[in-house]
């Protein structure tokens, strides 16, 4: 049980994919100006990562080493396309807001990285826990960033006005520079809380 918890927490905090491993930054910077986008992307990545981790851990031993990357890519692509179609069919506005970024989950290094380094060599349960931890960590990072950015940039949360009507929006927070700033500051905070051990 402890191992499960450790695995999960590592992905969520100590080895947080965004704050520690600096992966998936393209998506992180692009879509986090609204919390709704952040949540959707988090859920999408959660689904793709856990599902493909699970599948890969099942077939990991069977796949010859030389074709493992194509196979992983196929698995990921399948799930990403599923998500894409699903969003288009049932959450049209969100799908439009996220644009190409859902498709780009395929190239998200977090997913391929977890499959390659963890799932292909571990049991389905561990892979699932690991994937869930990492995906939750990613979602956490997205939501943390988007809360700050939406709050300052629009004065809203989930589109609901929370800062009062006289709030002057901080336009820079909505734009890419704000994304970089908030990302940098959050990485700073995260590392201040649990410092990186110097090698």
């Amino acid at each position, binding site marked *: 049980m402890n191992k499960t918890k450790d695995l999960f927490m590592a992905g969520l905090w100590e080895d947080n994919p965004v704050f520690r491993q600096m992966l998936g930054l393209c998506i992180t910077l692009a879509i986090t*100006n609204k919390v709704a986008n952040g949540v959707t992307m988090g859920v999408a990545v959660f689904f793709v990562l856990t599902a493909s981790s699970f599948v890969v851990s099942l*077939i990991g031993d*069977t*796949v*010859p080493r*030389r*074709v493992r990357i*194509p*196979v992983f890519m*196929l*698995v990921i*692509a*399948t799930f990403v*396309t*599923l998500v894409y*179609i*699903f969003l*288009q*069919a*049932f959450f*049209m506005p969100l799908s439009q807001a996220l644009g190409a970024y859902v498709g780009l989950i395929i190239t998200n290094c977090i997913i391929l990285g977890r499959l390659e380094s963890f799932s292909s060599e571990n049991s389905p349960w561990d892979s699932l826990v690991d994937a869930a931890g990492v995906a939750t960590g990613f979602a956490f990072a997205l939501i943390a960033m988007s809360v700050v950015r939406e709050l300052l*940039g*629009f004065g809203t949360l989930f589109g609901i006005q929370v800062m009062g009507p006289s709030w002057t*929006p901080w*336009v820079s927070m*909505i*734009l890419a520079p704000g994304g970089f700033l908030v990302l940098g500051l959050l990485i700073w905070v995260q590392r201040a809380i649990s410092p990186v051990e110097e090698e």
Partner: protein
Amino acid sequence: MKEEIWMVAILVLVATISAGLLGFVNVTTRPIIKKNEVRKLRESVLESLKVDYTADNLEDKFESEIKTKKLDGKEIFFRYNDSGELSAVAFKVTGSGFQGPISGLISLKPDLKKIIGLEMLSQQETPGLGARITEEWFLNQFKGKEVEPRLLIVKSGAEEANNKVDAITGATRTSKAIQGLINDDVKHVRNDILTDKVMEGYLNE
């Protein structure tokens, strides 16, 4: 040799499964997606024509009130009132904004001079600034304004006139872009597609 075959076999297998799965999902969801897209456009059309509708009777309303014609590659929506008279014309206006293409849907009185309504379909303007062109207060200003001789988007506080609309403070470029694309496209439609002669044919159903 055996290993190679095994590799190919695995790849083919995975690809087949994946393709099958995706194919199945695609087939099942295609109608829904299609419907979503059509619905979106229709919503905008009705919105710009100031037709009241609800989510449930959207399709019926559109079918009963709007006629779609494709003229010179441009989709044009005609609305006839109960007595069969043409009451409004709507079409897409497109052009480049400050950051990327902007497209909207404009509806005009049959004389093609007075605006009934304007809706934005897509834009990539600066959020919080140029992107405010999708906000209600901005779009509502267009109601009843004239595009003859030119529609003008001017700084707020300027003298009021039939063809003047307040710009968005701090987003001069986007405002200018909107002004340009409306004027250009309306002019194009009026001069090249819906000339007076053509219009005569549509006036009464």
